């Protein structure tokens, strides 16, 4: 008998007086010991499922139809106290942000003990033993020492292991994992997935795995449901959905994802973005039709029925037979040949921070970056990869002058930027620019877009007239592929991908020689990421600039950059042509990074 049966589950939201369907008739059966993956980009409504089960929907959202049968009982109509008795016991959750899910002022031991006593485990000693056993089973070293530690003393990956251990401690029948790896380092993604799989097998638990990453889901799950704009568009066995997607959206996603092993190819770019809740309301027919390469008049008029393409493989598309014909026509963006001359040469660059300096004790220093030496040629895209805390961002900040190096040289076109005479930013600003990681934080919410992208024209002693700036902003918006009417908007009215385009446009206002891009596509959806990667490749061909591309995603790096620098604990441990480094990694850390990137199915 199924652990969880969703029958035509429908969730609606009230938005300014009108009712919008957020999840439309979702049905699935989850058998014991199976993992089902809910896959969708942001805005697809995937997080609503987990929230609906726990009945913690945001205000204004409600389940308006359908049922969620948990072992025969309907969670939708169940009395609140009965449901509360199930949650945390028979139904457990693995959260998205492990660092914030643990109480920072209590030790791991105290929190585990509390959880176990809530589960009804008697005896302090028994609880301690059970906690130790669960932590050890989660692959955490020295569990005895761990019990006395506080969450901030652990890494994000370790916190997530603790939470997984506590989720499975009650031998739940159902575990809901909502993006459990998103907040963690890329190198730990696989390990966390392996742990969830192992725990799930051992406890014969059913798992709902919510993610935006189709490849990650395919690795772990038995079945996959692909959600688009609140509607399940494709469901079936994980391998089948990944290798032979039947819905055009799933096929487009597959083509938009840069590959780690196959021949480099251009990325498929879906136009526009997923319709917002408001737009969905006025749409008729298939919600993917506006972006679908196969759409015909019929698709825009009527909602496509769900058809079965193979055993257990269902797709909501009337043109599913034509899906495999969707392909990328363009060839891969060309990589420039070895550059004739270098734009940037970095020699023995180092940054040390003083820590623990007090009145009486000697200052001790921590080296954030040690003896980094590399160069970037003209028009060359060079990647800097490494896990968080490896010193990537410190290198970027030193290159643009936000941090002062402790020693070493940064030669830009032969001028040493560390010389005091050249510390004056305005001389360099024109040629070296930075694109920031978080587009929300990088755009002043009080400035209009036209003012943001031409901000450099009011810097220092420049006083450009407003009509000049207006004109330049129109050109820049065109270059990054945004409509002219964006000029008058505020950053708050833009989506994440659009903000990142503005971020890029600002760096291009005075054509730069070198761009520093710090994790600019991490946190963005695959389709938006493909749009931005193609944009960068096109801009290089049109404008000509070099770039240092900081990223943790090796497949993105492989797609975009001809050379790669691998950083580990403040040192550049390996550098070379991207194919060579990824194909035959020498340093153990590079090997770990390459192994952590999931192989293309």
């Amino acid at each position: 008998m199924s652990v969880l049966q969703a029958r035509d589950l429908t969730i609606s939201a009230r938005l300014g007086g009108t009712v919008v369907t957020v999840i439309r008739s979702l049905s699935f059966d989850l058998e014991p010991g199976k993992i089902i993956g809910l896959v969708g980009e942001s805005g697809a409504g995937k997080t609503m499922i987990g929230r609906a089960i726990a009945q913690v929907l945001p205000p204004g959202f409600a389940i308006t139809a359908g049922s969620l049968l948990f072992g025969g009982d309907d969670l939708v109509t169940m009395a609140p106290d009965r449901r509360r008795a199930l949650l945390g016991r028979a139904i457990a959750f693995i959260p998205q942000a492990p660092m914030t899910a643990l109480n920072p002022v209590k030790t791991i031991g105290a929190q585990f003990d509390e959880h176990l006593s809530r589960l009804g485990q008697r005896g302090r000693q028994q609880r301690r033993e059970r906690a130790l056993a669960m932590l050890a089973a989660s692959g955490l070293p020295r569990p005895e020492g761990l019990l006395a530690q506080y969450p901030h003393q652990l890494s994000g990956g370790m916190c997530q292991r603790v939470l997984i251990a506590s989720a499975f401690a009650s031998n739940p029948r159902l575990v809901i994992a909502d993006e459990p790896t998103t907040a963690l380092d890329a190198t730990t993604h696989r390990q966390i997935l392996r742990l969830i799989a192992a725990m799930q097998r051992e406890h014969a638990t059913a798992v709902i795995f919510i993610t935006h990453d189709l490849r990650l889901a395919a690795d772990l799950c038995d079945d996959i449901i692909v959600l688009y704009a609140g509607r399940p568009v494709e469901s079936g066995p994980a391998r089948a959905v990944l290798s032979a997607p039947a819905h055009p959206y799933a096929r487009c996603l597959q083509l938009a994802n840069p590959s780690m092993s196959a021949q480099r190819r251009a990325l498929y770019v879906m136009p526009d973005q997923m319709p917002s809740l408001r737009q969905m309301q006025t749409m008729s027919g298939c919600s993917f039709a506006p972006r679908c390469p196969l759409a015909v008049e019929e698709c825009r008029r009527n909602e496509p029925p769900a058809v079965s393409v193979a055993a257990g493989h269902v797709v909501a598309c009337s043109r599913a037979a034509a899906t495999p014909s969707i392909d990328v026509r363009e060839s891969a963006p060309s990589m420039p040949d070895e550059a004739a001359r270098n734009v940037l040469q970095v020699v023995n660059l180092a940054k040390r921070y003083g820590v623990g300096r007090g009145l009486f004790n000697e200052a001790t220093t921590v080296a954030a970056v040690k003896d980094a030496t590399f160069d970037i040629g003209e028009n060359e895209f060079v990647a800097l990869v490494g896990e968080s805390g490896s010193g990537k961002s410190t290198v970027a900040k030193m290159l643009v002058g936000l941090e002062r190096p402790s020693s070493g040289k940064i030669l830009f076109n032969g001028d040493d930027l560390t010389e005091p005479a050249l510390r004056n930013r305005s001389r360099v600003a024109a040629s070296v620019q930075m694109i920031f990681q978080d587009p929300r934080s990088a755009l002043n919410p009080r400035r209009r877009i036209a003012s943001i992208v031409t901000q450099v024209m009011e810097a220092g002693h420049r006083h450009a007239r407003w009509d000049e700036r207006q004109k330049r902003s129109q050109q820049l918006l065109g270059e990054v592929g945004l409509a002219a009417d964006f000029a008058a908007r505020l950053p708050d009215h833009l989506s994440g991908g659009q903000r990142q385009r503005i971020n890029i446009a600002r760096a291009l206002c005075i054509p730069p020689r070198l761009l520093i891009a710090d994790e600019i596509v991490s946190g963005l959806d695959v389709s938006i990421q493909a749009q931005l990667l193609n944009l960068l490749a096109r801009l290089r061909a049109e404008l000509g600039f070099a770039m240092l591309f900081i990223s943790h995603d090796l497949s993105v790096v492989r797609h975009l950059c001809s050379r790669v620098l691998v950083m580990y604990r403040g040192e550049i441990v390996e550098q070379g042509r991207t194919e060579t480094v990824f194909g035959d990694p020498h340093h153990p850390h590079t090997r770990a990074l390459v192994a952590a990137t999931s192989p293309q199915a």
Partner: protein
Amino acid sequence: MAGPLTRSLHSPRVLVALGMVLCVAFCAAFAGLVAPHDPSEQNLLSILTPPLWDAGADPHFLLGTDSLGRDVLSRLIFGARTAMIVAFAASTGAMVIGSILAHVSGYFGGVADWIIGRLVDIWMSFPPVILSLILMVGLGVGLDRVILAIVLVDWTRFCRVLRSEVMVVTRHDYVAAARLLGFTHWQTILREIVPATAPLLITLFSLEMAIAIVVEAILSFVGLGVGPDQVAWGQMIADARQNVYQSPWDLLLPILAIVFTVAAFNLLGDGLRRALDVRLAEAGH
């Protein structure tokens, strides 16, 4: 989305408070026209007359007279002028000093932050009223001295609260981006940071007005405020103390005036804080 200032004008709290403040401000600005009598004119023939609603009232003096036969209503109106001048000037002074130091401290950090932080710590360890009393003894009485004393005591309030806000804003990448585009420190603070801290600044200013009114009343009450030729609410309270049993209204009316004005500014400050604070505004939806 409407701008924060237009949004704040839709808040009933702000509208009511603004009405109260404008009422006091009007009296202060046009005291000479509004007041029925000269506030210093003594009518020794009709001293301690009760206000209109009590038996034995003189219709000439709507709110009665004090022990020297001066018209209470006129004195209240001229007292409002003193209170508003002190509140506005002292708050402006404290805001200018406090916010400049706060922006320097929060934006540059490091040594500047350490020095300003310690200065504020030491400054704030003095009880504010005692400090202002000591300052008044040193400076002597007078309207300008009162203003100076309040500025010297209360700039720390702005400095401490604003500094943390400046630090939060400074951490945003758009501030770093402005520097990378070649903005000078001065341009960065003025064009990127101040617009973000301005709502808090306005709120603090309104609250500081209320505090300045109370401090001025205290100083005038103990005779270390404005000079004897000027009318102040604190002075009126002090004068009315001796005759509190014969004419309690002489004591109560200036107290009510202080309460009304202070409540108005506190309400305005609170309303502005709610309307201008993005986080609170979002939580309300």
